[in-house]
């Protein structure tokens, strides 16, 4: 047990952290299953079986084209998680790069980067993504690009803030006195110390990106049909809300639970990584 970091020890875990962790784990497994195996082909149309309720053959029923909802949810999870993961990675990488340069170099690089950043930040994220997608055309990688751009500014701000306070610390000066170059100091001493706020941000961002992706799909600018995502499943269910309630509820529930999991885990990580909050409660 001693080899495990304290936050991984079940007995000492906060119930919220545990719930968040379990939800994210389930999401990961669902996405993996969707990638490797689904009970039916999620794209296979069977008009005779359309809008059937849950049964032994179709556990979660079928949609308006008679496609198996469970299969589509699993496949949709794979797509949604993949998009969110890639978006968060892109946003965090580029955001860190810009934030680090702005905070560490100060002067004119800081001014230029922050001016651009604030300009992007001034648009509501979803609106920016919508605008970009209408230019790029709706596709999986278009969405990733658009959402990365919409979510990057917050990373830049967080990293720059952390760097600004870190660069005044004495160990950064100590590195200079040792004869290390500025680039080395930045990468070896400043960057690793920014990871705590970054992990927290990335975790909760994952949930928000998934929600945004669903919103884009809902608005018709997401992953184009027939490929399933939770967002376009939700959108497609709207006309049938009277006849087949499960069509709307299931993907909606999936989105909510994911968002809940990501936020709980993000909060738990923040509490864990902030030593001032440790030992309370």
């Amino acid at each position, binding site marked *: 047990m001693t080899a495990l970091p304290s936050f991984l020890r079940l007995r000492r875990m906060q119930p919220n952290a545990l719930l968040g962790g379990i939800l994210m784990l389930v999401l990961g497994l669902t996405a993996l299953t969707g990638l490797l195996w689904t009970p039916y082909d999620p794209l296979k149309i069977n008009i005779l079986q359309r809008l059937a309720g849950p049964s032994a053959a179709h556990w979660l029923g079928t949609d308006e084209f008679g496609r198996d909802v469970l299969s589509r949810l699993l496949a949709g999870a794979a797509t949604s998680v993949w998009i969110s993961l890639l978006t968060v990675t892109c946003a965090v990488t580029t955001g860190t790069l810009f934030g680090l340069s702005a905070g560490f170099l100060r002067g004119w690089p800081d001014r230029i980067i922050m001016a651009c950043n604030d300009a992007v930040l001034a648009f509501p994220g979803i609106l920016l993504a919508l605008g970009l997608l209408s230019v790029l055309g709706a596709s999986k990688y278009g969405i990733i690009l658009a959402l990365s751009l919409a979510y990057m500014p917050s990373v830049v701000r967080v990293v720059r803030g952390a760097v600004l306070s870190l660069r005044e610390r*004495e*160990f950064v000066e*100590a590195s*200079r*006195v*040792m*004869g290390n170059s*500025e680039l080395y100091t930045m990468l070896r001493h400043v960057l690793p110390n920014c990871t705590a706020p970054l992990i927290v941000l990335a975790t909760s961002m994952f949930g928000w990106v998934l929600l945004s992706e669903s919103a884009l799909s809902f608005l018709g600018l997401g992953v184009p049909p027939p490929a399933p995502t939770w967002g376009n499943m939700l959108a497609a269910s709207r006309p049938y809300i009277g006849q087949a309630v499960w069509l709307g509820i299931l993907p909606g529930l999936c989105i909510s639970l994911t968002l809940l999991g990501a936020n709980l885990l993000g909060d738990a990580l923040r509490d864990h990584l902030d030593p001032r909050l440790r030992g309370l409660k």
Partner: protein
Amino acid sequence: MTQSPLPPLLSVTGLTLGLRQGRTLVQDVSFSLARGEVIGLVGESGSGKTMAARALLNLLPPAITRTGGTITFDGHDLTTLDPVAMRRIRGARIGMVFQEPMTSLNPALPIRTQLEEGLILHTTLSAPERHQRMVDMLMRVGIANTEYCLNAYPHQFSGGMRQRIMLAAAMLPRPDLLLADEPTTALDAFVQREVLELMLDLTRENGTAVLMISHDLSMVARYTDRVVVMQQGVVVEQGPTQDLLLHPRHPYTRTLLDALPRRPAPRPDKTATPPLVEVRDLVVRYPGRRRLLGRDPDKQVLHDVSLTVHPGETVALVGGSGSGKTTLGRAIAGLTPVTAGSIRFRGAPLPHRPPFRQPRVWLDWRLDCQMVFQDPYSSLDPRMTIGAAVGEALRHDRTLPARNRQTRIDEILTEVGLGAAYAGRYPHELSGGQRQRVAIARALARRPAFIVADEPVSALDMTVQKQILDLFTQLQDHYGFACLFISHDLGVVEQIADRVMVMHDGRIVEHGPCHTVFDSPQHPYTRQLLSAIPMLEPQPGGGLSLRWRYGEPGSA
């Protein structure tokens, strides 16, 4: 005063505090305090002295709870008091002065509001009466322009002034007991004495008892009637101050007394050799802020400062905060750009600004001039092991093959008294003193010829301070590096310096060999600084007595 026939004002019996998880922080602490008495609670960081005092006001952090003991204040049992009654005692009957004057006043409120708060809560005085009382109190704490002060905000005052205001705020409701938690630790030695004396005068006039918490035994000894010594949550010794100094009984008290600064025998003069570092007419100017039209005037921090450091010598740079001593050290270490003047290392001039592509002379200087910083908590990268931190200093050493690096790391860690086993640990697993040892190891790993030590011990407890200073001297004998030792603490300087330079407002006002400056100071500023530190005279039997240089308080 200890034989007072009246019941004591405050009596604490068997106070025990523990963390929620069960670790005991303060165990079975008992002491009492008569009306008007001044007692000192002395101990190192982690000894539980602050927590014991906070428990009196029920101001413990949420993770800590009181698990036993009683606290009786003027007939009330404070441990069973309900929150409303407790609030009537806090402030009104027990006042508190905190350590950090920079953060203990609310920066968003004018002084008037902060002073008046207590009076409105705890007295029935009318507005003009309150005003009069505030004006009187401010005059009393030595603030002449009271109207200006009342309407000003905390940031407009220096640390010493803020501590006076804090004191005024605590004393306004005329409490029976004043808790002073390290009230002057954050201040310069000179200001420290002024504020303490003011505090004592003020409490004596009002008949207020004082519980003074401090790690500085010499300061406490000067001002208190009785001393309670705490170690690791336990009271190890208490008694009248004079007795305790003359006849310390507990070994820990003796350790504390031994840690008080004493001057060693002077070392041989090393100024005959050619200087290692030569600073001539150094000027550092910080550019003013750019405004919409034009810019603010530049701020000149150093005015034509010259100094030399010879091989193997320790030169101390002494001065109050804002005297420019840190700027000088940083300029020499190449961290602050130089405006004018020259710095020569072994006769070769250094460039004024660190160039981006480092030329040979600069890199050599970087490696030959290392720095030990003040705060051991921020000078080590929290995400690097001790071994990696020390090893980094060897990155640029072209003479040391990579495979010998580990040997050197182990060697230097052993030399600073930690041992090679520490290489795998992270800074947060180490105490302040151990961290400072790591910082010294890092600075010495490359065997530099010159070290700039910026207040290297001022963040440490007295006994640890002594250990680090001893280590420093020992390593200097071994490696023979020269050192520029920056400090505001003359007691520390006296122990370590060969020569002393006194700085005031960016100029060197006095310099000379250590014993000359300490025994016959010429400049009035030096006298002022010296008057603030007590001199210790060892007494037969292992005890000590304290004495002020240059007359008694008030006459200086």
